[in-house]
Structure formats: C-alpha cells, structure tokens
C-alpha cells in the first residue's frame, strides 16, 4: 500500500470520526435539552391569523402555552436539582464511611436527605393547602 492511499485512508477515518462525534454530541445535547427543559426551548413559529381579533386570541393562546411550558420546564429542573443533591449527599455518606465517620454524622446526612425528599418529592409543606395540586 503506497503512502497516498494511507494518507487518504487516514483523512477519511478522521473525517468520519469528526462527523460521528458531532452527531453524537448533537443527539446528547438534544436529549439533555428534552430531559432538563421538557423541550420548552423549542419555540413555535412566530406566525398567526391575519384577522386582528383572531390574531389577539392566537397570541393569548400562544403566551399561555409558552407560560405553561416554562412552568413545566421549571418543575422538571427542580426534579433534576433534587436528584443531583441526593446523589451528592449519598456520595458524601459513602466517603464518610471510608474515613470512619461516626454514627451520628451518618444519621445527620440521612436526615438531610430525608428532609429533601419530604419537601421536594412528597410536598409535605403544601399537604393541607386546600386544592393544592402537587
């Protein structure tokens, strides 16, 4: 095999790899966007009916829809943050055990994790608010 063939093969290999990495990154970023924002970053096309009254109604509906998506996105983000905090505290618990932390310290971490779950996942503070939707 001559040097030109090897050179072309290497260039093709690098180009394929770059395309592969770019596609993978794009898919990962798209999935992360869906996971964190629930797809709220996907803005609908900015067109509407020609009639003035219909245009106003359309704009109100669009604004309501965007506000609803923003609320959903915010709720999903809170869930992700809670998961990250719980994972962080579990890691601390694991490391604390390795360095010989006391039973009291372990229980303290467990109580903090329990408080986070009670507040953010079990909505204990809004439990008796009438008609409160979790």
């Amino acid at each position, binding site marked *: 095999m001559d040097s030109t063939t090897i050179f072309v093969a290497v260039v093709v290999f690098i180009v394929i790899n770059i395309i592969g990495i770019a596609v993978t990154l794009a898919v990962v970023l798209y999935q992360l966007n869906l996971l964190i924002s629930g797809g709220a970053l996907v803005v609908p096309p900015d067109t509407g009916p020609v009639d003035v009254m219909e245009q106003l109604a359309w704009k109100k509906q669009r604004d309501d829809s965007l506000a609803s998506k923003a609320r959903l996105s915010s*709720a999903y983000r809170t869930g992700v943050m*809670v*998961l990250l905090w*719980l994972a962080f505290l579990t890691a601390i618990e*694991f490391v604390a*055990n390795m360095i010989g932390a006391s*039973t009291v310290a372990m229980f303290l971490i*467990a109580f903090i*994790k329990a408080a986070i779950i009670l507040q953010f996942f079990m909505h204990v503070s809004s439990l008796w608010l009438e008609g409160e939707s979790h």
Partner: protein
Amino acid sequence: MSTETSSLSEYREQLTNNRLGLWLFFVSEAFLFIGLLAARFYLWGDTRPDLDQNLGIIVTVILLASSFSMNRAETAIVHNDRETFLNSLLVTASLGVVFLIGVVGFEWQGHIRPQDGAFGAVLYGMTGMHALHVLSGIVFILIVWNNGRNGHYNSERHWGVEACAIYWHYVDLVWVFFYPAIYLMGKVVH
C-alpha cells in the same frame, strides 16, 4: 355554581381527607420500620456484617433515580404531559425491578444466610420488608400506568398518581435510613 365546579370542589375536599388517610398509613408504617432499625442497633450494636459496598451504593442510586422519574411522572400529569407521564412511570417501575434484582438476586445470594444469627435475621428482616414494599409499589405503579393509558387522569384529577408517587417516595425515604444502617454504620465483622 355549575355542576362541574361543584363536583371539582367536592373532589378537592375529598382530596384533603385522602391525603390525611395516606399520611396516617405512613405513620403506622413508620413504627414498623423504626422497629426494624431499633432491632438493628440493639442486635448489631457498633458492628455490621461484611457486605458488598458496591452493590449497596448501586441499588441506592437506582432507588434515588427511580424517585426522580416518579417525580417527573407526577409533574408531567399535573401539566397534562401524558407521554412523559406514562414513560416516566414505566422507567420508575423498571428501576424498581432492577433494585429488587440487586437486593434479592445478588445481596441475598451472598455469604450471609437468614439463619446466621443476628446478622442474618436483621439483614433479611430489613431488606425483605423493604423489598416487599418496593414490590407492592411496582404493582401500584403498573396499575396507575394502565389507568393512565386509558385516560383516567388529568391535570385537575390525579389523586391516584399523587398517592402512588408519595408511596414510592416513602419507600425511598425508608431506604435513606436503611442503607447507612445496613451497609455503612459500625465496624465490619468477618
């Protein structure tokens, strides 16, 4: 007042009673789990059996992740996002199954047997009782998923989803205390 508004008002009043009932059930369950924890500290003291630490942390992270997906399912139905709701329920049930496989399929196949004195009795008692709750939670999730598939819930009326979610988080909450008590606290006895 329209019939629909009146019906919704009655539903919300009923919701308050439902929540009270569910939380009273949790209080009664707490006595059971606190009793098991007390047995662990009384019988094991400042010691613990030599368990697989990697397995312990893996099943713990899986259960935490399942709580996240359950929360996602509940948030989704509150905002009428049905697809995410149904998918997240399935993810939660699957993670629950993986947790069960980790505990029953791997931890219970280790060197400690139920008849091995205090270590065996407490280990199998705690993990067994918790696994039973995980199993019933999975059944609960699958029932809610099936109802959801048939259009039973919406953003206004989703008590079944809320109850299922809170029950699942409760199971997770119990493990938050069981994990360090079983795997981390005390000196290892070989």
